[in-house]
Each structure stands twice: as structure tokens, then as C-alpha cells.
């Protein structure tokens, strides 16, 4: 598929699309468990710092993306406290690598993911979980057999939204990992580069159309899935 696209998009464009898909998939998959935990804590948790966690999760939504990218650079860069530790301990490097693009995308998409999941969890009647407990189910069994099946469409919707957001992430990515063709040049970065060069209007238009298509498909899918949540909880 990408081979055919290469002719139409040009080699740089095709590489950018492939990288963006990889970055978005990894960012979404890697942030799912933490997203689920945060959504559960925010939907059900009664603890000190609830508001703080809520603010922290939503911060990337409000902050200028360049600030998020800068903060990532400062903390997760090779000389940043966490980045240096990760490199020494696990050999994981984020700065100026595609992994960094995935991290930036994950951070930027996190609020959207958590929000969709949280809404789905809040729509589950906790009294159904009480009923399951009276029937002898342990907490883990209640979660696996009642809570999870009822929120599954919400989890998928959150993941789809996060994927779409990751595909389009630009500001934090370019700040954190720069714009290296074939390494950290994602689809939006490729559009930005093409815009700087005269005579590349056709490439810009094609890449932009591709971005719009990905975003639309993801939004429609997310909408359809959230309807499924409502229908499933209503039992239709």
C-alpha cells in the first residue's frame, strides 16, 4: 500500500506517512494502560489530589504545544534528569528519535483518550457492580465481566481519538525531536517543510488531504463507537 502511495506522495511524503502511522500506533498502544488507570481514578477515585491529577492530565490540552515540547526536552532530553537516567539504566533515548515523537504524541493525545474513557466509565451504573458482588464475584471478576465489557467501546473510542491526535501532532513533536527526514519527520512536519520550499504546493495539498482523511475517519469511528457505549449500556 505504501509502495503505491510513494509515487503519489513522493519518497519524503511516503516516509512521513509511514513514520506517522508508526508513531501514532506506538503512542496510542503505550498510553492505553496508563490512560485507563487515570480514567478509572478520575471517574471513581475519591482521594487527595484528585483535582491535581485532573489538571495534570488536561494540561497538554491547554498549554501551547511548544511549551509541552520544551518541557519534554528539558526533562526527557539526554541531559534532562529523567532522560539521562533512562539512557543510563535502560538505554532508551527519546531526544531526536522517532521514540521521542511517539512520546510527544502520547502526551498531547493523553487528555483526549482519558476523557473518552472517563465518560464511558461514569456511564456504568456502580450498582450493577454491587449486584455482581452479591452474586459472589471478586473485585477483579466484577471488573472483567461487568465494568470492562460495558466501557470497552469507550476505551476503543478513546484510543481512536488518541491515534488521530497523534497523527496530527506537530508543535510539541518538532520542539522535542526536530524535523529530520526519515527519522523524526512526521506527516505534519513534512507539510511544514514542503510549505517552506517554493513549487511544492502540490505535495502540500496531497499531504494535507491525507491528514484530513485520517482525522475524519477517526472522528466518525469515535462517534460511532461512543454511540455503541450508550446502546450497550441501555442493552439494545
Amino acid at each position, binding site marked *: 500500500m505504501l509502495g503505491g502511495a510513494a509515487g503519489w506522495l513522493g519518497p519524503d511524503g511516503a516516509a512521513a506517512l509511514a513514520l506517522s502511522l508508526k508513531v501514532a500506533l506506538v503512542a496510542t498502544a503505550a498510553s492505553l494502560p496508563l490512560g485507563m488507570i487515570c480514567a478509572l481514578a478520575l471517574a471513581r477515585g475519591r482521594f487527595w489530589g484528585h483535582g491535581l491529577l485532573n489538571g495534570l492530565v488536561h494540561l497538554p490540552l491547554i498549554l501551547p504545544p511548544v511549551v509541552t515540547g520544551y518541557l519534554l526536552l528539558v526533562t526527557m532530553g539526554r541531559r534532562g534528569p529523567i532522560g539521562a537516567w533512562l539512557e543510563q539504566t535502560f538505554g532508551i533515548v527519546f531526544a531526536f528519535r522517532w521514540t521521542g515523537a511517539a512520546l510527544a504524541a502520547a502526551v498531547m493525545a493523553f487528555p483526549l483518550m482519558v476523557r473518552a474513557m472517563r465518560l464511558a466509565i461514569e456511564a456504568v451504573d456502580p*450498582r450493577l457492580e454491587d449486584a*455482581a458482588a452479591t452474586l*459472589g464475584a471478586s473485585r477483579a471478576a466484577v471488573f472483567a465481566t461487568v465494568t470492562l465489557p460495558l466501557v470497552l467501546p469507550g476505551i476503543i473510542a478513546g484510543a481512536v481519538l488518541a491515534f488521530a491526535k497523534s497523527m496530527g501532532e506537530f508543535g510539541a513533536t518538532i520542539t522535542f525531536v526536530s524535523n529530520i527526514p526519515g527519522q523524526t519527520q512526521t506527516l505534519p512536519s513534512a507539510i511544514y517543510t514542503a510549505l517552506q520550499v517554493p513549487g511544492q504546493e502540490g505535495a502540500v495539498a496531497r499531504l494535507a488531504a491525507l491528514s484530513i482523511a485520517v482525522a475524519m475517519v477517526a472522528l466518525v469511528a469515535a462517534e460511532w463507537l461512543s454511540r455503541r457505549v450508550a446502546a450497550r449500556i441501555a442493552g439494545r
Partner: protein
Amino acid sequence: MLDVALRHRFPGFALDASFAAPAGVTALFGRSGSGKTTIVNAVAGLIAPDHGRVVVDGRVLTDTAAGIAVPVRRRRIGYVFQDARLFPHMTVRGNLGYGTRFAPPGAAGPSLEAVVAMLGIGALLDRRPALLSGGERARVAIGRALLSRPRLLILDEPLAALDAARRAEILPYLENLRDRTEVPILYISHAIAEVARLATTLVLVDAGRVARAGGLEQMLADPTTAALLDRDEVGAVLTGRVAGIEPDRLARIATAAGDLLVPGLAAEPSTAVRLRIRAAEVILSLTPPRDSSALNVLPATVAAIVPEGPTALIQLRLPGGAALLARITARSVEALRLEPGTPCHATVKSAGLVQGGG
């Protein structure tokens, strides 16, 4: 069988209730907001009382003094919630199976087939709860709870959300449940007609306290209990057996106090039945009434007279130890010179007899 003592303080409401219940159906009866659901939630472990003790079948489930609080899932109390709480993402079969799934492997109890047959839900097995009527949902919820092999079954107003027709449809299933399972049942209700039909023990709950508790017949024939009921609902219950159906299709019911004739009862001979006799349906006379349309006249002795302003509630002792309540005017009490010990005749209008198995 069941021993409950609870003290719990909510903002604006205090619960201080204790009662003991033998096997059979124990009805917790009281107005909405009197604390009935709070009591059973503490029994089921869904709320932790400030102070209290809950013992089911010899097992201590809650004892705040000893620091015992058995978790909900280990209590093995089948709870049929007022709103059924069926799992919307599972079929009826899935919901019923959920009950069996977490039951202890060795626990005895009815099979899926037996439960399905008893509750008449065979045709519903592949449906989702959203497509069930209120009455069907209640029956499935009862089945699910039964299949979890409970030591105690709690039914929290399973009929409250249903109209009169659905209620009449479900009551026979509940009677069946009472007669065919050995599981003790805690039944919450604020409808005395249901209680009179189903319960063996009556616990009256009022403002977070147990006002009175005891056997159903004694309780309903007690003027002190009557003071806690709606005026029109006051009345005793007599138990008997169908002795036969007369040629004119009246059923002859043999009770300890004598035979009564009831229309509209289509029961097999020797079936146990309950007759609910409202106090307003009983007429008193000093001599047996002559040339009267009433068929049922029982000899009685006045046991107690409770004045209620222009009327009075008379407790009557019947032969065989049963009791009846009659509401007559204070003027009639005067005219007949009724006082405790006065022998008299209680005429029960046939229309006042209410059927109910058990």
C-alpha cells in the same frame, strides 16, 4: 436463622434496628424512607454499619465489636434489587449463568432448568434485559439470585415498580418460591396485601426502628400493629385449607375457627390458603344474625377494645386460638355493651375474604 442488630447514623437519619427471624418469609414492612432498604443493605454487606451484628444461619457476617465484616461476595446472600439490576450486556441466560458461575462448587440448590421452570422464563433465555417487561425482569433477577446458591434471599420490593396486573402475575411465582425452596427470604414491602399473602413473620419498621416483630397472624390481629398501618388496610389473616368446592362454586375453607365460604377461589381441595379479613368487613352481633345475606358467621369472644374516636377496633378471640379484628362505631360498642370477655358472633362478609396461597 437470621439475627440482626444494627445502629447506624446518617446525616439526618438514624437507624437503630434489631430483630430475629425464623425460617420462611420475613417481611420488613414500613413506609418509604423508614430504613428497610438500609437494613437489608447492611445484612448484604453493601453498607458497613457503625455498630451491629448480623448472623445468618449461625454464621456471623458482621460483628463490629469483634471486628468481623465478611465481604459482600463471601456472604452468599442473594439480593433481588428493586430495579432488578440485570447486566445489560448479557442475555437472560448469561445473567442466570452469572449466578451459578461464582457459587461455591459444592453448594446445593435448584438446577437452571428447575429455576427456569419455576419462574416461567424459558421463552426469555436468549433476550437482552432491555427487551423484557418489568415483571419479566423481576423474575429473571429472582432466578439469578437463586442460582447463586444463597443462604438467604433478599427481595427488595420486587413488585413496587409494577402495575396491579403485573403484580398479580408475579405473586404466584413468589408463593411458589416460598413453598418450593428452603432458603429463608427477607422480603421488603410497603404493601400489606403482599405481606399478608407471602410472609410468615412480620417486622414493622418505623423511622429507622423496629416498631414490632412477630408471627404474621398474631401481628396482623394485634390492635397495636394496626395503629401503624393505613386505616383501610387493618385486618387479620386466617389460614385454612380448601375443604371442597360447593355445587354453586363457592369454596369451603376449613379454618381452626370454623368453615368459611369464599367465591372466586379456583383452588384444588386441601390446598393451603390465607384469608385476609379487613376489620371494616366484620360485623358484630350478640346473637347469631337471622334472615341475613351473610354466609360466614363465626362465634367469637371480645379480647380487647381500642377506642379510635367515633369508632373502635375490637380484637376478637376465635375458637382454635386465631384472632380477628373488627372496626365498629363507638355507639355500637355502647349499644351492645361490649367489653373484654363478651361472647358474640362475628359476621364476615364474603366479599371481604381475600385469597392467597400458603
